[in-house]
């Protein structure tokens, strides 16, 4: 075993050294804007923070015995997906187009991805700044999916899932939507900051994964209450904060579009938190903190595709509806009988779908000349395009994730055994206890 590892390390080093330096050669281009670069770097840092934020948000909602296992499913996405992105992911998603479906591998190991701007993606910042900003999106997306199978997935299976899913599901969809030559981009589908790529994709994949892995033991008759709602709130706060980078950073520059995205993000989130709180108050008699926080996340999700394309008041409406539909989705789950532990589908799948549709309604070239007008501004076409793209993303995400989970289950098994589930993931998968007495 030791020998094999050493051998692979040597081999790997050799490869690194071989291909290492092409990308570095690019001299700084004169067009780089310091304000734009500052904004995109800050945004990348903010999006990075969202993944620990998600770890806390999710970790607070599970039972004590699974908190580390749940957090680790988010946290480990950072190293694993980042390395995949450097080696092949960025090339697959943003590299030269192959059949409108995927990038080729010519940017392998960030080959040619240097410090001068790439005019296709972000003309005023170093290409690597765009690359690293996008990396953070690839990282958090499968972490969102992990909410679906929290408290019962084998860690080895999760690592395999992470690599397969990122490569086979995330990278292609990112290419469709944002890659030069991608078919959704070519068709004119609008996705400002990842409504398709991140939200619908993760949410629908969560549904497929929850179905394959099956319910937690004891669900739904045994209450599985969140073990620490202060962690949850902290996580929600960090997500809200980081999402400004996610959405407004997607302008890939500082200025009016970034401002519009920032403003719409905040307003929609406020409205969704409000709406969730009100509907829960009316439905159950009490407004919970988890409800307000969940509503906020639903709003953040829903505004994501629309952020840089819509004005303040449409955002208010968009967010309010998001709070309502996600609340309904989450409540309905219990009737439909699948156990999406932390409601990744109910919040991200449904919220993202509504957001993508709403972009087709509320988008306005007055906000962003680079966008398009929606239904409300007399262009029903956009709404139809959005609907079509939603359907395609749903189908692809669901089918691919279902298949990946089924294959993994057959090959290594996706689920811990009953005793391990009883004892918890922390001890059985990671040999750790979150809290000592």
């Amino acid at each position: 075993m030791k020998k094999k590892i050493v051998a692979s390390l040597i081999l790997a080093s050799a490869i690194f050294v071989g291909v290492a330096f092409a990308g570095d050669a690019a001299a700084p281009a004169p067009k780089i804007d310091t304000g734009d670069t500052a904004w995109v770097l800050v945004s990348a840092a903010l999006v990075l923070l969202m993944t620990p934020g998600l770890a806390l948000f999710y970790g607070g909602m599970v039972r004590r015995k699974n908190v580390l296992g749940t957090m680790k499913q988010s946290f480990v996405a950072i190293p694993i997906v980042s390395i995949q992105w450097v080696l092949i992911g960025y090339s697959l998603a943003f590299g030269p187009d192959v059949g409108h479906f995927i990038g080729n591998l010519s940017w392998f190991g960030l080959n040619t991805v240097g410090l001068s701007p790439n005019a296709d993606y972000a003309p005023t910042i170093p290409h690597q700044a765009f690359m690293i900003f996008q990396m953070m999106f690839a990282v958090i997306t499968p972490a969102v999916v992990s909410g679906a199978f929290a408290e019962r997935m084998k860690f080895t299976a999760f690592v395999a899932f992470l690599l397969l899913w990122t490569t086979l599901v995330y990278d292609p969809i990112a290419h469709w939507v944002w890659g030069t030559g991608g078919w959704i981009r070519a068709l004119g589908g609008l996705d400002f900051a990842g409504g398709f790529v991140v939200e619908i994709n993760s949410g629908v994949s969560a549904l497929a994964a929850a179905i394959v892995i099956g319910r937690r033991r004891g669900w739904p008759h045994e209450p599985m209450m969140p073990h620490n709602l202060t962690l949850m709130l902290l996580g929600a706060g960090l997500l809200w904060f980081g999402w400004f980078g996610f959405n407004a950073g997607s302008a890939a520059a500082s200025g009016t579009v970034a401002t519009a995205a920032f403003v719409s993000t905040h307003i929609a989130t406020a409205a969704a938190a409000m709406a969730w709180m009100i509907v829960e108050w009316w439905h159950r008699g009490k407004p919970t903190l988890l409800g307000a926080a969940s509503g906020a996340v639903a709003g953040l999700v829903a505004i994501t595709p629309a952020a840089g394309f819509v004005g303040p008041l449409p955002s208010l409406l968009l967010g309010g509806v998001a709070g309502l539909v996600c609340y309904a989705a989450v409540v309905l789950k219990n009737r439909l009988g699948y156990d999406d532990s932390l409601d990744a589908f109910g919040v991200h799948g449904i919220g993202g779908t509504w957001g993508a549709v709403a972009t087709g309604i509320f988008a306005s070239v007055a906000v962003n000349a680079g966008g398009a007008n929606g239904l409300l501004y007399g262009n029903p076409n956009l709404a139809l395009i959005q609907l079509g793209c939603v359907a395609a993303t749903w189908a692809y995400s669901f089918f691919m994730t279902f298949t990946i989970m089924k294959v993994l289950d057959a090959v290594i098994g996706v689920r811990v055994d009953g005793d391990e589930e009883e004892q918890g993931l922390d001890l059985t998968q990671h040999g750790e206890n979150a809290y000592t007495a």
Partner: protein
Amino acid sequence: MKRVEAIIKPFKLSDVKEKLIALGIHGMTVTEVKGFGRQKGHTELYRGTEYKIDFVPKIKLEVVVAQEMAERVIEAVISAAHTGQIGDGKIFVTPVEEVIRIRTKERGMEAI
């Protein structure tokens, strides 16, 4: 000697403690427990679903005393922990055969 064990409402602990001190009790041991009884639990909400939680937080207070003190301890606990509402709790009295103070190895009444 007797052990008087009272299951009481948590917010009554400091009143009960004061009463027992007033009685000349020098030691007691307290545990956080959860009780199930006639006092109904409560419902908690989790993302739009209601869950019934049966167990309510209680405090278990144990005092080991001489036989002749037991009744006065019981009185004191009742008077301090009583609210008249369901869930005020119970007192259990059990026999204790020996008490030892670890510090001095004293035994019996001296050790309390």
